[in-house]
């Protein structure tokens, strides 16, 4: 599915908080239609990088382009074309499922008809017919995460950023979640996802592994496994993290 059209183009991205360098000269490209895994241990700098790509945070230096637009100059235009699902559940818990759908659809400028269609389709796909008018805060976590993802792509963005979308979710729901990700990719939406689960890493078409603010490995899962003579992504990950520890 992946093409050669670059959706994300990052060169020498640096983000410093005082003396601490959270992102140390990151270089990577994400192509249209990719499911791109952005892996790394806790505190490796994944969320920092995602926030920069979404326009929530300024980079210290470097070139960043999202959907062909410059992050410094056209941040607000980029926002029309991206979806974002943060680590922390951030739909309105006091609103019902339907009200959240209407709110975010409206904010992204969906017309009433489009909004109704998209909403109905979403409710059907997620099988939330009975929960439509329930307060979101009362739903189980897994359902909330699936709803948040569906709302993040309701306006058909060119790319969606998912920051640990399956944290704390049971294995069955995680699988369903990845089915949703594949459906989105089929619709032509590029997916940029961070995760801690190495089995999920195998589902990605391309991925990079961050260690202490730097990208230590980048490529297809099979290539990375061959390169590091590892049987699974988990082994690759641990080898990279260990190597880092020995050198530091």
């Amino acid at each position: 599915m992946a093409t050669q059209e670059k959706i994300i183009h990052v060169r020498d991205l640096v983000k410093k908080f005082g003396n601490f360098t959270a992102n140390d000269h990151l270089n990577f490209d994400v192509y249209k239609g990719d499911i791109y895994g952005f892996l790394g241990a806790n505190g490796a700098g994944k969320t920092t990088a995602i926030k920069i790509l979404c326009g929530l945070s300024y980079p210290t230096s470097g070139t960043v382009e999202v959907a062909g637009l410059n992050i410094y100059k056209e941040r607000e235009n980029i926002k029309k074309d991206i979806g974002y699902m943060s680590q922390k559940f951030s739909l309105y818990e006091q609103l019902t499922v339907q009200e959240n759908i209407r709110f975010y659809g409206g904010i992204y400028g969906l017309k009433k008809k489009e909004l109704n269609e998209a909403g109905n389709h979403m409710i059907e796909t997620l099988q939330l017919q009975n929960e439509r008018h329930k307060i979101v805060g009362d739903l189980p976590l897994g359902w909330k995460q699936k709803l948040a993802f569906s709302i993040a792509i309701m306006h058909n963005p060119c790319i969606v950023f998912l920051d640990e979308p399956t944290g704390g979710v049971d294995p069955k729901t995680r699988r369903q979640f990845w089915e949703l990700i594949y459906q989105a990719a089929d619709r032509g939406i590029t997916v940029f996802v961070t995760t801690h689960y190495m089995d999920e890493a195998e589902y990605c078409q391309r991925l990079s592994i961050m260690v202490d603010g730097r990208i230590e490995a980048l490529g297809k899962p099979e290539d990375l496994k061959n390169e590091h003579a590892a049987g699974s992504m988990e082994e690759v990950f641990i080898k990279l993290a260990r190597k880092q520890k020995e050198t530091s």
Partner: protein
Amino acid sequence: MRTILILLRKEFIMIFRDRTMLPIIFVMPLLQLLILVNAATFDMKNIKMFIIDKDHSATSLRLQNKFSGSPFFRIEDQSMNVEGGHNSLLKGNADVVLHLENGFEHDLMTEKQTKAQLLVNGINSRTAGLINAYTSNVIADFNKNVIIDNLHLKGDQMLQVNISSSFWFNPSLNYKNYMVPGILVILVTIIGMFLTALNIVREKELGTIEQINVTPIKKHQFVIGKLFPFWLIALFELAFGLTLGKLMFDIPIEGSLLVLFSFAAIYLLVILALGLFISVSAKTQQQVMFVTFFFMLVFILMSGLFTPENSMPIWAQRANAINPLAYFMRVNRMVLLKGSGFADIANEFISISVFALVSLSLAIWRYRKTK
């Protein structure tokens, strides 16, 4: 425009779904008016008096009766010696001690003048001043009677200046007429500032603001969506409070409500913008509470709610030029008690409009979608 309407719809749903909102809107003004207006009284009643009467003459007794007959004084106790009086003042059993020496009557009869000593508890200078004035009044009245009786003059034979005074704008000096407009200002300000500030920082704490910040919502849309509901609620609160004030205390509404609400509308922009500014600068609800509380306290105490602005030191009066509460406090009383119109409060209108412009710009500038 559509985006703003969508934001507003969401905001109103969330405000009224919050179970604490309705009590805040309806019970708070009722309690504030009932408690504060009745409790924060300037009137002096039941001044506790202790009398040391060493004379025990007909004249000293008449003076005593003069006090015990007054609705403002209550004779707590009396004794023949000084210690009793001093002790009751020390223990707080008396606010004022009247000391009549032996020979009080004798001096009056022979020397045509006599002395009495007044000891007033001065801890609260305002009460002390009032007690002194009340007591002097009673004694002056007593003096007049003594002169008439003893010199066998008829009242009209006395040369005296009769002062007849009338109090404008609040003829009966009803302190409630003075307090209710003041309390209303506080009420509207608290509602506007706290609710706005807490609402936005709550979205920060929950993380929902991040989801908003990745959308193409424009800054002004977000700000209007956040401020308009509380602007409306605060204006409603003013109307509700005025109605309560009219029904419960029958406060006068001399001026035009249009003038009052026009001013309130602009004033609220200042207050809401301050709330917004505080909340976009803070990270937690706790920080917001502390900062807002600090500002409110300074604003309220300086505003002239209790202390007339004119009797503040010059520096404080100058500082009040940047206290929005002082403006509204003044305007509210002017319009309600004096019936001032647009022309009379033109200066206040201009000042508060400048405030609104500055504080709104500051708040919008301070709100960042990108950190």
